[in-house]
């Protein structure tokens, strides 16, 4: 078996006195798409924030390419090849598209190749090139999602964390986001995806984890979860 790119062991996290993650365990294999599905409040975003270093867990360990990053600051994680596309996109609204993208390459490891990376992002998302001098705050939700993705790619990550990338998007944009995820996997990126849109997420997933109330309730290959009676009843409405 190949060593996992990301291993999360017994992860526990809390907001003040309220514990929201209870001994969460999962692995992300290199080159795969791994999805976390579950209802609102199941703990998907908390996992993403803990892995990206935006919140400190109260227990457990996070290993990235064998290195313990549980307590590492977020900029350190970005620099070592882990990039978060946050929930709600979090673009810089008062800056132009191009400035947003260039900020994506602010980590020392990404600086040298930023112009090739910018060309690559523009090739993947021609719309961003058309809008390069527009303020990000004036763009539609779908365009902002592309920008957030492009900005994440600018950091030259090996592992991309996508937190609810389709939230609040029109169906046609949702389709496009999943298409982009397929393309990214084909280009060799490893992806950890948190998604409410369980059906499409499972169709795409090499490995999937179902979260319930801060615990992993079920795990297996995406197709297997898609066929699971519990998942079909609770999340796919069948």
């Amino acid at each position, binding site marked *: 078996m190949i060593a996992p790119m990301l291993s999360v062991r017994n992860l526990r996290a809390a*907001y*003040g006195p309220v514990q929201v993650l209870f001994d969460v365990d999962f692995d992300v294999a290199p080159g795969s798409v791994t999805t976390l599905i579950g209802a609102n409040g199941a703990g998907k975003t908390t996992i993403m924030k803990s892995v990206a270093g*935006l919140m400190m867990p109260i227990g457990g360990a996070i290993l990235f390419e064998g290195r313990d990053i549980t307590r590492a600051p977020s*900029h350190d994680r*970005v*620099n070592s090849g882990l990039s978060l596309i946050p929930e709600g996109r979090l673009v810089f609204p008062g800056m132009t598209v191009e400035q947003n993208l260039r*900020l994506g390459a602010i980590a020392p490891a990404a600086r040298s190749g930023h112009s090739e990376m910018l060309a690559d992002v523009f090739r993947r998302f021609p719309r961003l090139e058309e809008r390069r001098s527009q303020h990000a705050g004036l763009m539609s939700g779908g365009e902002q999602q592309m920008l957030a993705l492009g900005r994440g790619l600018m*950091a030259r990550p090996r592992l991309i964390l996508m937190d609810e990338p389709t939230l609040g998007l029109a169906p046609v944009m949702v389709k496009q986001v999943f298409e982009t995820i397929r393309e990214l996997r084909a280009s060799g990126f490893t992806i950890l995806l948190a998604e409410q849109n369980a059906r499409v997420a499972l169709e795409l997933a090499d490995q999937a984890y179902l979260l319930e109330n801060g615990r992993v309730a079920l795990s297996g290959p995406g197709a297997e979860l898609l066929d699971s009676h519990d998942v079909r009843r609770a999340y796919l409405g069948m």
Partner: protein
Amino acid sequence: MDTLLSGQLLFAALVSGSLYALVALGLNLVYGTLRLLNIAHGDLVMIGAYTAFWMFSLFAVPPLVSLVLAAALCALLGWAVYAGLFRRMLAKPDLAKRVEANSLILFYGISVILQNLTALAFSSTSRGYQYLDTVITWQGISMTGNRLLSLGVAATICFGTLLFLRFHLFGWGLRAVIERREAAQVVGVNLNRVQLLTICGGFAVAGMAGVLVSMTEQITPFMGFPFTIVAFVVIIIGGLGNIGAGILAGFCLGLVETFGIALTSPGYRSILIYGLFVGVLMVRPEGIFTKAVRS
């Protein structure tokens, strides 16, 4: 009418405007990146002024050299405040939520301590010294050398900072933190480093402003508070956390004040400044130069 068109008033307006812009710049940087309301900001101006005064009268060190010393001293103070007080507060989410309100009280305490320590050490006698106070006349405008120097240094620091924010990578990170702190962390900005260097830089700028003020004004332990007030007025007129707009607003306030007084009388100074302040708050509370695209 002739006096209004003469360069004399314009020069006076630019001198005070550049100082307002400089004092407000430091406050705006600290507020923008750390969300700390530094009520002790004017006291850093006072510390800079005392540094220049003592260096000049004891060792005949010219104010241009004291600029560096005052900047270093105030930057050190900024480091002490950040490492000693705020790093812990900002790291705890429940405390960080209230950091804005708490910082007001904490800095008020720091202000009282700084003022009284200074009064204890140097007495509250007002001090002053003479440096470059000969009058130069150019194109019918009479200027003293120290005011010309003050304008030159203040404007250079203001525009230098703007260029730095625009073209240096660290400046980009700083702007990202001001605009959206969490997003800045997401792209990999070293938040701790940006915050520490910004508080040091913001404090240093106030100290340098103090050196410039000391060349033309009386120095007392309690001279700082009016600068705090003016700095707050300027950054609120410009838009909180908007660095370029704050600098523009500083110059605007200098122009309004100087030309307003020339048209009325010095007794109207406060009415002019606060009138502009209240007017901006009523018409455009987000600041007159703030772009509308912020969401």
